[in-house]
C-alpha cells in the first residue's frame, strides 16, 4: 500500500480560509453589539446593581432595633458574625442536599432527555417537551405546597398506608421530603439542556460507531456522553446553583430538620430585620457556591485531561513501512 503521489492531487492543497478583510466588518460588529444592549441593561439593573447594594450593606451593621441597616461605620464584623458554627452546619447540610439533588436530577434527567431526543419520533418531541415544561411554568410555591399536601399525615398516601396497617408514615418535615421536593422542582432545568445537547447530536455518529466495531454501550460511552457533556455541565450548574440558594422548598417541606442556608439568609432579612448580617451571609453563600463550582470544574478538567492522555494516539513519524 503506497501513498498516491501527492503532487497529482490538488484536492489536498490546504486553503488558508482567511480571505481579504472586508471593509464593512467593523461597522457590522457595532450593529451586532447594539443588539446585545437590552440584555446588557437587564444585567446591570437586575444583577449588578442589586449585587453591589448587597455587597455594600454587608460592610455595615444594624445600629438599633428599628433600623434594618446602616453604613455609617464600615467593618468586616458582619462576616465574622455570619461565620458561626450554625452557618457551617447549615451550609454543610445544604451542600449535601444540593449535591445529591443535582446528582439525582442527572440520573433521572439523562434517560428522559435521551429518550426524548433520540428514541422519540420528532412528531412527539414537542409534546414531550411540553409535558416537561408545563409543570415548570406552574408557580413554584404552588407546586411545593402540592407536595406538602401529598406528604401530610392527612393525605391519600397516608390513608392507604394506614389502611394497609403500616401506620401513619412520617414523610413531611424530613430531609427526605426536601430532597424529593428539590428533585421535583429542578428536574426540568436538567432535562432541557440535556435534551438540547442530545437532540443536536448527529445520530449517524452512532451508526459510524457501530460500523467501526463498537457495540451500543461503547457508542454511548465514547460518542453520546462526550457530546452531551456541554449539556450535562449546563444542567449541573442550572440545578446546583439555584438549589443552593433555595429557601422555599425547605421552608414548605422541611420544617426545622431540613433547614437550608437560604432560609437563614431570608430570616435575617424578614424576621430579624438585620439586613447587614443577611447581606454578609448572602455574600458568603455566593462565594461558597462559586468555590464549589470552581473546584468541581477543575476536577472535571483534570479527569478530562487524564482520559485524553490515556486515549491518546501517537502517530509516529518513523520511516518504517510508512510511505508518507
Amino acid at each position, binding site marked *: *500500500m*503506497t*501513498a*498516491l503521489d*501527492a503532487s497529482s*492531487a*490538488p*484536492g*489536498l492543497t*490546504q*486553503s488558508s480560509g482567511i480571505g481579504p478583510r472586508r471593509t464593512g466588518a467593523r461597522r457590522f460588529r457595532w450593529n451586532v453589539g447594539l443588539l446585545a444592549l437590552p440584555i446588557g441593561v437587564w444585567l446591570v439593573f437586575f444583577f449588578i446593581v442589586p449585587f453591589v447594594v448587597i455587597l455594600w450593606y454587608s460592610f455595615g451593621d444594624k445600629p438599633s432595633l428599628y433600623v434594618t441597616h446602616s453604613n455609617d461605620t464600615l467593618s468586616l464584623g458582619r462576616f465574622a458574625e455570619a461565620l458561626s458554627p450554625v452557618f457551617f452546619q447549615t451550609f454543610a447540610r445544604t451542600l449535601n442536599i444540593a449535591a445529591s439533588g443535582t446528582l439525582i436530577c442527572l440520573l433521572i434527567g439523562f434517560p428522559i432527555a435521551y429518550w426524548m431526543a433520540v428514541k422519540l419520533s420528532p412528531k412527539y418531541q414537542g409534546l414531550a417537551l411540553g409535558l416537561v415544561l408545563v409543570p415548570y411554568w406552574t408557580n413554584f410555591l404552588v407546586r411545593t405546597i402540592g407536595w406538602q399536601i401529598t406528604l401530610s399525615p392527612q393525605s391519600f398516601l397516608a390513608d392507604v398506608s394506614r389502611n394497609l396497617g403500616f401506620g401513619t408514615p412520617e414523610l413531611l418535615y424530613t430531609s427526605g421530603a426536601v430532597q424529593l421536593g428539590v428533585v421535583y422542582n429542578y428536574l426540568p432545568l436538567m432535562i432541557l439542556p440535556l435534551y438540547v445537547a442530545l437532540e443536536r447530536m*448527529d445520530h*449517524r*455518529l452512532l*451508526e*459510524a*460507531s*457501530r*460500523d*467501526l*466495531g*463498537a*457495540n451500543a454501550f*461503547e457508542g454511548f460511552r*465514547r*460518542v453520546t456522553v*462526550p*457530546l452531551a457533556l456541554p449539556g450535562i455541565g449546563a444542567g449541573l450548574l442550572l440545578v446546583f446553583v439555584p438549589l443552593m440558594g433555595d429557601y422555599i422548598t425547605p421552608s414548605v417541606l422541611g420544617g426545622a430538620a431540613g433547614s437550608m442556608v437560604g432560609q437563614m439568609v431570608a430570616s435575617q432579612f424578614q424576621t430579624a430585620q438585620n439586613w447587614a448580617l443577611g447581606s454578609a451571609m448572602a455574600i458568603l453563600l455566593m462565594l461558597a457556591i462559586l468555590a464549589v463550582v470552581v473546584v468541581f470544574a477543575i476536577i472535571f478538567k483534570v479527569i478530562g485531561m487524564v482520559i485524553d492522555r490515556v*486515549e*491518546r*494516539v*501517537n*502517530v*509516529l*513519524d*518513523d520511516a*518504517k*513501512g*510508512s*510511505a*508518507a
Partner: protein
Amino acid sequence: MTSTAETEIDFKTVEHSTAPGRVTLSGVSKLYGKNYAVQSLDLDIRAGEFISLLGPSGCGKTTTLRMIGGFEYPDEGSISISDVVMQDLPPHKRPVNTVFQAYALFPHMSVAKNVAYGLGYAKVPKSEMGQRVGDALAMVRMKHLADRMPAQLSGGQQQRIALARALVNRPSVLLLDEPMSALDRKLREEMQIELKLLQQQLGTTFVFVTHDQEEAMTMSDRIAVMNGGRIEQIGSPAEVYDSPTTANVAGFIGQQNFFTGSVENTGPVGASVTVPGATLVSAKAPGQPLVKGGPATVAVRPENVTVTAGDAAGPNQISATLMSISQLGSYLQVVMLTAEGLKVMARTNRTVDMPTRIGDAVTASWSAESVTIYPTA
C-alpha cells in the same frame, strides 16, 4: 504499508472464508410500511471489484447498502459476506466498513483518534495502533493533520479522514454512501480518480452508491442500475452505456433523445418506428422484444446526431429548426425543433458547413446503428 501481507483480511469472522470480499444478496426484500424499498434483489458482488449501485433517489440503492452494512435487516432473502451468511448480524460484527454520506466524523475527537476508533475493537495492540493510524493517514495523505479536529478540516479533507477511518480496519468490503455529494465538481473528479487507484492498490471490494452516472462510469468495474427497488441492468460501464436494456437505463446513463411512436417493422436485428413526421430505423437488436404496431420508444444519443444544412445521407433524418446552440468546452450542444414538435438534441464538433444561426432550417441525421428501440410499457 508496503507489504502485501498487510492488506490481507484478518477478521476473525471470515477466517475460513474462501472468497474474502465477496458479497452475495439473494432474493433480498425490504419493506417500508407496505412499499418495497428493495424487492427480490439478487446481486453477486465479486471479491475485489469496484461496483456502483446507480439510480435516482428512492430506487433502493442506499437501502441495499445499509442492509450489507447491517443498519437495516432484510424482510426476505439472505446476505452473505465472504461466503458467511450474516443478514442477522449487527453492524459491529460484520467485516465491512462504511464511508458515510456526510462523513460522520466524531466531532469531539482529533483526526488520529477518529481513525483509531475501530482498532481497539479489532483487538489491535495499543503499541501497533500509532503505526496503523499513521499508515492509514499517509495513504490518504493526511498525516500532517493527525492532531486537527474535524471542524478544522475542509470537506475534501474530512472525506479523506472518513476513508482512512474505514480502511484502517482492513475491511473485506468497503461501503461508500454517496461520499462525494458534498464536494464541488473539480474536487469530486480528482477524488474519483484517486479512489479508483486506491481501490486497485488495496484490492478491497468497494460498493459505491451514487446517483451520478458520470461518477459511476469513471470508477466502476461494474454498474448496477437500480430503479423501483430492483436492478434493471448490471454490467461494465461500456455495456451499460452502449447497450442499455431498458429505456430507463438508457435515459439514466448519459443523455438520450427519446421519440415515441409505433412499431412499423420488426426483425431479428433491426426495426423501424413511425414517429410524427418521420420513420426511424434501427439496425440494432431491440432492448426487449417488439410487437408490430405496438407503442415504442426510439433512443438516440446526442453525440450520434449530425447537423447539416441540406439533406443528409442515411436512413434517419428529420428536418428541423435550430432553436439554440451552446459551446460546451470541446463540443457544441445544439437543440432543434421539428414542425411536429419533436425536440432533437445534438452534441457535435463544429463543422464548416454547419448552420449556426437561431432559426436556420437544418437536418438532423444519424445512423441506423446508433438507434435502439424499446417497447413502451
